[in-house]
């Protein structure tokens, strides 16, 4: 994990020099924490290995997201150990993380958990970077299939709760939502936000910044039996009355408006890390890699985001933790989706 503002080629070269033969995968980031996590670091390197662990890596810069996912997933086919997890690091800004994950899932099946996140980087310029071996990829996909004699654990939680009645996405095109319940999406959303007290009542539209600020703690959640999948508001078109989210909301989906305060959010972080450790089937955790959403970072602020690191350390029993804030999180443990927003996902080793 390296700050995207650095000379990433130089960083990677340095890591390679120190790392010797080890396979290297990585991601650009805006903020990353490691160890004690009192202050963010520009570069966090996590070394994973030892007896009973083997790794195969793969990368793809194919323009087609489906092909990218399938190509990288191939690294996890025919693992040489009993347990395998595929760590995915992809572009956070191309809106195709969901497709990548679905392809990888279909290629591998429910027997291989998926975990990872979309890289944070130059959001305005829509550029993010991933590392693979000697290469710095831009807007690519990198995967590491981690095989182990012992179980590996993946956890995923956001801590948010449903608010109000469900809505049906009556018209959408990927991440762009035109209408909810047959009415302009923006209008319906504003109603709900006003109803939740996130916006003052009245007919007047807020400006975009206000809307996004109000919408940040109120993502939509795809209604699922086991756990709703959050969708963070990315932007809105006040004229067209449409909403754009970080990840897709398929037409015909049932959604709820979600809500949660800081405590709830942190409880979610805790839950995710605990879930990951639970996946070790009793074995002690050696370390954890955590992906948390940049939206959460924004919401929690400088003060409380470190608490997510703390939560992770608590879950691992104080072992090494590396945490990065990502744009879109990947975790497929149950269900057929696997791409999350405003969620914490954790890989426990």
């Amino acid at each position, binding site marked *: 994990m390296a700050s995207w503002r650095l000379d990433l080629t130089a960083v990677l070269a340095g890591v390679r020099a120190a790392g010797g033969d080890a396979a290297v995968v990585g991601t650009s980031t805006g903020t990353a924490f490691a160890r004690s996590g009192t202050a963010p670091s520009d570069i966090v390197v996590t070394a994973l290995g030892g007896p009973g662990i083997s790794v195969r890596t793969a990368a793809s810069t194919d323009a087609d997201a489906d092909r990218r996912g399938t190509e990288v997933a191939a690294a996890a086919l025919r693992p040489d150990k009993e347990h395998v997890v595929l760590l995915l690091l992809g572009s956070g800004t191309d809106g195709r993380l969901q497709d990548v994950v*679905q392809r990888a899932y*279909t290629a591998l*099946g*429910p*027997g291989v958990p998926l975990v990872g996140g979309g890289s944070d980087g130059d959001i305005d310029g829509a550029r993010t970077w991933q590392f693979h071996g000697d290469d710095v990829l831009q807007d690519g996909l990198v995967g590491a299939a981690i095989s182990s004699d012992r179980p590996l654990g993946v956890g995923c939680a956001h801590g948010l709760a449903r608010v109000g009645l469900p809505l*049906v996405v009556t018209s959408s095109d990927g991440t762009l939502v035109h209408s909810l319940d047959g009415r302009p999406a923006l209008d319906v959303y504003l109603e709900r936000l006003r109803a939740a007290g996130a916006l003052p009542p009245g007919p007047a539209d807020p400006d975009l910044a206000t809307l996004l600020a109000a919408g940040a703690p109120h993502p939509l959640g795809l209604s699922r*039996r086991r756990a709703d999948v959050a969708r963070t508001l990315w932007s809105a078109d006040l004229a067209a009355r449409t909403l754009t989210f970080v990840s897709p909301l398929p*037409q015909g989906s*049932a959604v709820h408006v979600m809500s949660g305060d800081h405590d709830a959010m942190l409880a979610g972080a805790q839950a995710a890390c605990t879930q990951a450790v639970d996946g070790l089937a009793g074995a002690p955790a050696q370390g954890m890699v955590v992906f948390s959403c940049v939206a959460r970072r924004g919401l929690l602020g400088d003060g409380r985001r470190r608490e997510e690191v703390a939560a992770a350390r608590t879950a691992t029993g104080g072992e090494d933790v590396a945490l990065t804030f990502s744009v879109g999180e990947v975790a497929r443990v149950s269900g057929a989706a696997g791409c999350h927003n405003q969620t914490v996902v954790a890989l426990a080793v």
Partner: protein
Amino acid sequence: MDATVHQGLQLVELLTVLGRAGTAEAMVPLAAQWAADVVDGDVAAVVRDGVVLAGAGVRAGTPLAAALVHALAGATAASTPVDLPGLPGAWLADGEVTDGLGRTQLVVARAGEGGFEAAERLLVLGTGRLLGESLRTARAFADERAQRRRSDDLAVEREALLATLRERELLLSTLLVLQRAISHRRPLEEVLDLLCEGAQRVLGGLEAAVVLEDPLHRDRLRVGARRGTAGHAGCEDLLAHARTAVSTQAWASGADGGCRWEAAPVHASGRVVGALVLLDRADRRSPAAPAHAGERSETLLTTFTQHASVALTDAYTEKSLRESFYDQLTRLPNRSLFLDRLERAATGHARGGPRAALLYLDLDGFKAVNDRYGHGAGDAVLQACAARLRDCLRPGDTAARLGGDEFAVVLEDADVPAAEEVAHRVLAALCEPVVHEGHLLEVGCSIGVAAVGHAGTTAETLLRDADTAMYVAKAAPATSRPAVRTFQDSVRRARAERLELEVDLADAVPGGQLVLHYQPTVRLSDGAPAAVEALVRWQHPRLGLLAPDRFIGIAEQSGHITALGRWVLGEACRQVAAWRAEGMPLTVAVNLASAQLVPGLVGEVQELLRTHRLPGHALVLEITETVVVADGSAAQEVLAALRTLDVRVAVDDFGTGYSSLSYLQRLPVDVLKVDRSFVTALGRGGDPALVRTVLSLADALGLDSVAEGIETAEERDVLRALGCTVGQGYLWSRPLPPAQLRTWWLAADAAARPATPVLTSR
């Protein structure tokens, strides 16, 4: 919102989503993912006849897929959980996908506590049903689209075919017109015109032209035919474009300013003789050929050039055909063609067809015209004669030029009188002068007539008979020239005799069969003898004594004349030397043939004078006017050399030839002998002006004059009055053998003393 209504809404949206997917292939994975999402399944798949078509979290050919299919087939799938690879304890929910193709099912598997709720199962069912309907519709749409595309394609194909057929029809009809014109041997110009018109119509373009090599200057090109006008600047360089195709012998094209051109070579008899050039504006698309791709137009152009080549080869061949059977200058059939026609006429008659007659014409004095005025004048005379000849004939008659100045005519369905009539008409026409560059050119004509008569007549015999008759006509005395003579048996006999004589002539000299008779020339004033003229006779062993007109012509033509002439000269010298030795102071005039007028003659004469101890002035050599005119400067030299020997030269038959005054002035002659025809005319009360002129001429040139053929006293008197001093003729004596001449001489001399030679050198 009520959950059921809610779910109903969701299904409605699914319909839209599937509709948007468009194709069956896209719908299936979409439906599987949707089904998994909507009931929070872990894995979902669409299975047809035991094969996973598409899925979410599962793909065909994996152990999971096999296990899923197997579980689906099992009866307990709905009520008990199954262990699937990677998904232990999974509950299944499935629904039929009624898409009309095999047994298709949608299945969703979910691990975890409890199975699927009724509502969830209904949702999966509904999803399956909707998928089935959507697939059916999608397939129907696809089929219809394919059908429409097929009929659209068919319509397009048909349209293209129609267009092609129309184009081909146009091309074929154009080519048909061309081919008809070529096979009907339409004039080349007409064919080339049609070609240009056709090429322009089929290939489009502003202008089509055929450019051909100039037949006289093959490296130059000229426009043979042209249709349309490219007009504006840039398209004028037709010849240059043609030249490109000609020099590369291949199709060529290019752009030249605002003009687009293409050219292809045309051949005749395997040789490139020109090019077909098409011009067009650069920005125009040819209307007649919408698919005017470069390659296609090249093919079409080649078709046209091939037709052009056929026409040209035909025309060129026909031309060469004509050239090989027609005389170039007069456009009359030549000898080969003529003989063919003649043969046909002869055999036609032999088979009972109509009579035919042959005229054989020879122009008189043609050589003189050529020499005097040049070959251009000669050609003009021949062309005029040919034209006049044609005008005298009927359509069925054939006139031909056999060569040189010889012509022949086959008169179909004509007997001798008719043929003679035509011959006279022709004669009259041909004897009219020909005007050429300000000169009046006159030629005469001798015509021999022969008719198909007796059995055994062939073209050859006919030709020979007419030729013989023609020679007879030629041999006719000047007064009855120009002449027509008809071949008769007597002529055949004459020819036979002629041939005989020719053979016999070879013996004449060595056999001592020749004799000289002598005719005296006398002073007109008193009849005193002046000189003698030696005239040769042939004592033929069978035919008796033959006069020169019987054999001199033959001798000249057979080449015996040289030997003959030499003998005459020798004998005359001997005789006169003998007489002079006896005291008869006479000179002898000897006739020379043109063949004798060679440089060797000088030495010969010199030797004779020496041998017989004769003074040069004892010998006068007579040459005819035509010989003088014909032989020109060569004769001059010989004559001049002879005069250095003191020998004198006389011009015989003066007035009948074509000598010009300047010529006469230059020639080294001493005596003019006035032809007997002029003298005879005098006697009949004719105009003496001519004789007077000749005499004055002689006087003016300082020449002596002798009048020949004086037969009456009247003639003598007129001549004397005109100032003529010496004469010759039957009035005084016919030619006599030496002994008799001697006798006459002595008597005449005695009768008119003093006997002094009249002729002196001046």
